[in-house]
C-alpha cells in the first residue's frame, strides 16, 4: 500500500545542481573546493553527505543553504536561481526556505529557549507556534531556560526547534552531533528523523560519522570536491539501531 502511493507521487525535485565548481583564494593558494558537481535533491528526502575534512561537503552545503555562491555552474531551488542571486536575494531565500542546525548550536545566549525560537518565527512567513516547535523536540518543560542553563543535547534540540519553527522546505545540518556524546547524539538524530517524517522537510546532514548514513534515504560521498558515490538505502535504519 505504502509503495503504491510512493510510486504514484514521485517526489518533486527541489534542488538542481548543475556542474557546480567552487574555487577560492586561501592566502597565496588557489583552493578548488568543488569540481563540476551534479546533484538533485527531492522534497521530503533525508540525505547524508559523508566525506573527510576538505572533501567539499561543507562548501556544497553552504551553496545549497544560500550562504555562498558557486564560482561556476547553476544551482536552482524551485524557481530561485541561487547561483545568480545577490546578497539580499540569498538572505531572502534563507529567511523563507532554509533552516540551519550548527555543530555548536549557536544559540543566542541572551535569549531563553522559547525566545530563541520566537526570534526566527517573527521574521518567517508561515511559522509554526514556537511552543509547538519546542514540543516537537521535547523541550516544553525547559522553554524558559537560558542556553547556559541547558545541556549540550538540549541546546542542540532548541537549535533544531529554532530551525524548523519557520516551517522550512529544507533543514541543513552541519555536523549536528559533532559536539555531543553518543546517547545525546541519538536523541538529536531521533528528532531530525521525526521532523523529516512528520513535516516532510528535506533534511540534509553533513557528517564524517558513517554510522549516521544508515538512517538516510540517500548517502552522498564526497572526496576532493567531487561526488564519488551515491547510495540509496532500501530501508532507513531507526535511530535506536545506530551504533558507533
Amino acid at each position, binding site marked *: 500500500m505504502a509503495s503504491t502511493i510512493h510510486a504514484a507521487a514521485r517526489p518533486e525535485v527541489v534542488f538542481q545542481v548543475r556542474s557546480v565548481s567552487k574555487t577560492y583564494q586561501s592566502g597565496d593558494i588557489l583552493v578548488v573546493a568543488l569540481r563540476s558537481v551534479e546533484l538533485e535533491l527531492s522534497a521530503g528526502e533525508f540525505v547524508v553527505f559523508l566525506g573527510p575534512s576538505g572533501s567539499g561537503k561543507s562548501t556544497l552545503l553552504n551553496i545549497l543553504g544560500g550562504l555562498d555562491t558557486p564560482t561556476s555552474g547553476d544551482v536552482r531551488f524551485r524557481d530561485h536561481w541561487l547561483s545568480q542571486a545577490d546578497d539580499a536575494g540569498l538572505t531572502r531565500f534563507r529567511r523563507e526556505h532554509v533552516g540551519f542546525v550548527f555543530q555548536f548550536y549557536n544559540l*543566542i545566549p*541572551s535569549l531563553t529557549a522559547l525566545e530563541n525560537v520566537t526570534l526566527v518565527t517573527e521574521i518567517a512567513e508561515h511559522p509554526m507556534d514556537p511552543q509547538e516547535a519546542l514540543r516537537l523536540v521535547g523541550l516544553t518543560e525547559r522553554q524558559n531556560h537560558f542556553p547556559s542553563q541547558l545541556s549540550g543535547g538540549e541546546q542542540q534540540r532548541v537549535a533544531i526547534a529554532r530551525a524548523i519553527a519557520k516551517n522550512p522546505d529544507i533543514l541543513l545540518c552541519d555536523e549536528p552531533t559533532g559536539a555531543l556524546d553518543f546517547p545525546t547524539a541519538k536523541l538529536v538524530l531521533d528528532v531530525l528523523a521525526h521532523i523529516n517524517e512528520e513535516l516532510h522537510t528535506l533534511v540534509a546532514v553533513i557528517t564524517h560519522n558513517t554510522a549516521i548514513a544508515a538512517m538516510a534515504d540517500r548517502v552522498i560521498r564526497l572526496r576532493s570536491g567531487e561526488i564519488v558515490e551515491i547510495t540509496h538505502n532500501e530501508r532507513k535504519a531507526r535511530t535506536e539501531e545506530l551504533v558507533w
Partner: protein
Amino acid sequence: MTTLHRKLFRDLIHMRGQAFAIVLVIACGVASFVTMRAMYRSLLRSQADYYAQYRFPDIFAAVKRAPEGVAKRIREIPGVAEVKPRVVMDVMLDVPGLAEPAVGRLISIRPGERGGLNDLFLRRGRFMHQAAGSEVIASEAFAKANGLVPGNQIDAVINGRWQRLTIVGIALSPEYIYEIRGSGSLFPDNKRFGVLWISADALTAALNMKGAFNSIVVSLQPHASEAAVIAQMDRILERYGSLGAYGRSDQISHRFISDEIAQNRISATVIPAIFLAVAALLVHLSFSRLVNMQRSEIAVIKAFGYSNWQVGAHYVQFSVLIGMAGCLLGCVVGWYFGIRLAAIYAEFYRFPILVYRPELRIFLWAVLITGSAALAGAIAPVMRAVALPPAEAMRPEAPPRFRSRIIDRLRPGWISPGLRMTLRNLERQPWRALASAFAICCSVMIVVVVFGMFDALDRMMEIQFRDAQREDIVVTLNEVHSARTRLELARLPGVIRSEPFRIVPVRLSYEHRSKKTTLLGLLRGSEMRPMIDRNGKSNAIPRSGIMISATLADALHVRPGEKLRVEVLEGSRTVREVLVAATVDDLLGANAYMDLHALNRMMQEDHSISGALLQVDAAKQQELYQLLKRLPAVAAVSIKDAEVNSFKDTIDRSMGLSLGTLMIFACIIAMGMIYNGARIALSERGRELATLRVLGFTRNEITALLLGEQAIITIAALPFGFIAGYAICAVMVERMQTELYRMPLVVYPSSYAWAVLIVLIAAAVSGLLVSRRIAKLDIVSVLKARE
C-alpha cells in the same frame, strides 16, 4: 625587537580603529591642556614682562586739582619709588567717518620723557614735538577700530573750545590693555572710546591747569605696603578732591585682564580632566575585551615560560603606546592651537608682544598625565591577564550567563526578542553601560555648558540692555547743571523722551568695611531705568533712603533697615547716615541708587542734574549726533546699540575659536565612545550576529541589533547630560559672579537641542563606521568555528 614587541605592533594594527578613537580622545585632552596651560603661563609672563618693561604703576589716584608741590609730598611717603602727576580729561570727539560722537581720554605726557611710569609702546609714527600742542598719540585699539593712521585729524571739544588734533603716532599703554572708560561700562567700545596722549604743556594750558595735576600714579619700592601708602596718599589728597587712591586690584584694565587670565587656569584643569577620564574608560573597556580575546595566547606565552611580569609588561606597553601616540598628537595640535590663539589674544589684550612659547615642563606634565590615564585604564585588565593560570586560559572563556531579571518581569510580547537581547546585554554588564553613558553624558554636558554660557550672556544682554536700560542714549554733562538743561536736552531734534539723572561719586561704609562707587539719582518710577533684577523683575526706587546692589550689600555686610555712612567724594564732601531701604539683585556693577529729589536734598542742591537718559527717534539720530558733538556742555555720550554691538563683536572674536574647538572635542568624545562600544560589542557578539545572518536576518536587522545597545545608552545618557550641563552652568554663573557683572542662570531649549543634535550626529557617524564592519562579517565561518 623581541617577538612580543612584534606581537604588540601587529595587535595594534589589528585594532587600529579602536586605538585611533582612543588616541583622538587623549589628543583632545592633551591639546586642551597644552594650549590652555601654556596660554595661561604665556599670558601671565607677557603681562608681567609688559608691566615691568613699561612701568605699570602700583597705585592710582584722581583729584579735582592739586598743585605740583603735592606730588613731591607724595614722593616722600616711605615706600614710594616714583610718582608721575598728570592731567587726564575725557572730552567729546568728532571722529571722521563716525556718525556718533566719541569720547577721548586725553592724558598728558612730557614729549621728551621716556622710560617713566606708564611708558608708551609706540607701534607706528612718532612721539609729538614739544612745541606742537595739537599733536596726539592715539591708542591702537581706538585707531584700529576707526581706521585712523598717523596724519589723520580728529576734532575735540576741550574745555568748551573746538580743537583740531593731529595723530602722529599709534601706541599701547599698560594702563589701557583693556580699554574701557570706567566701571560704568562693561565692555571695550573701541570705536567710541579711546585714549589720546597729548603734550602736557598743551593740555594744562587748554584746561587752565598750569602747575597742577588731577591724576597721579605711583610705583612702590619692593616690599612696601600698598595699604599704608594708599592711606597716606588719601590723607594728603583729600583736600584736593580725591576720589580715593587705589591699587592695581581696583585698576579696571588690570582687573579684567587678571580675571580673564585666571579663567584660563580653571578651564586648563577641568577640560583636560574630562577627556582623560573618558580616555581611561575607553582604554579600560578595550583592554578588557583584548585580554578576553587573547586568553589562549596569554596561556601559550605563559606555558612557554614567559613570566607574569613579562605578560603584564606587554599589555602595559600596549596601553602606554596608545597613550603616548595620543599625547604626541595632542602636543602638536595643542602647540598649533596655542599659536593661533596667541594671535587672537595678543589682538584682544593688546600686549605689545604675546609670545606663545610652551615650556618644556608643560609637555612633561602632558606625558605624565597621559601615562597615568592610560595606566589607570589598563591596570585592571592587565592584572587579570597576569593572574590567569595557563591551564585555565587554554579553555575558552565561559559562555556569558544570563539570568531572568528586571526585564523578564515585563509582560512577554511587549518587547521583541531583539530588544530583549539588547536589554539583557546591557543588564549583564551594567558597569560598562554606565561607563559609556558617562562619556556620552560628558559630551552632552560640554555642548550644553558651551551654549548655556552663551544663553546666559544673551539673557544678560537682554535684561540689561532691553529691559533695564531702556534709553537709547546717555548724555553726561561736564558739570552739574540746573534742571533747565534737561528741558534743553529734551528739545533736541529726535528726542522722544528724556529723564534726568544725578550721579555722585561716593564712599559707602558700614562698620569697618567701605566701598567706592557712584550714587545714581533717578526719577521715582523711572520708565527708562525700571531697576530690573537678575530674574527680570522690576523694583521701585524707594522714596527715601538708598537702594544698593545685592553684591554691594554682601560686600559691606549690610541689610535693608540698617544705616550706611555715605561720604560724597566731590564738592563739599558731605557725610551722611542713610538708611538702606532696599537691595536689588542687578546684573552689572556694584551700584547705589536714590530718588533724584532725595539725592538733591542730601546734596543740599536745588534740582541739579548730571545728565539725561534719552529715547530718540531713529530717523533723526544722525542729526542729533551731529549736534551733540558740538555742545560744549556735553562731556560724554554713550549710545546703547553701539555698546551692545561692540560687546557682541568682542564675544564672537574671543570665544569663537575656543568654543568651536570644544564642540569638535565633544563630538570626538561621543564618537570615540560610541564607536569603541559598538566595536567591542561586535567583537563579542560577532558569532551571534553571524548566526542571525545565516538564519535569514538582513544586514540592516543585525546592524540595528548591534547598534541598539549604543542607541539606548546614548538616549538614556542625554537627560543626565542636560542635568550635568545645567549644574555646571549654575556653578560657572556662581563662580564668574564678580562685582563687575553677574550672569543670570538660563539655558534655552535650543541649547539642549544642539547638544542632542551634535551627539546624535556623532552617534550616526560612529554607527555608519561600524556598520561597514558588519558588512564584512564572515557568516560561513560561524558554522564551524567555536569562539
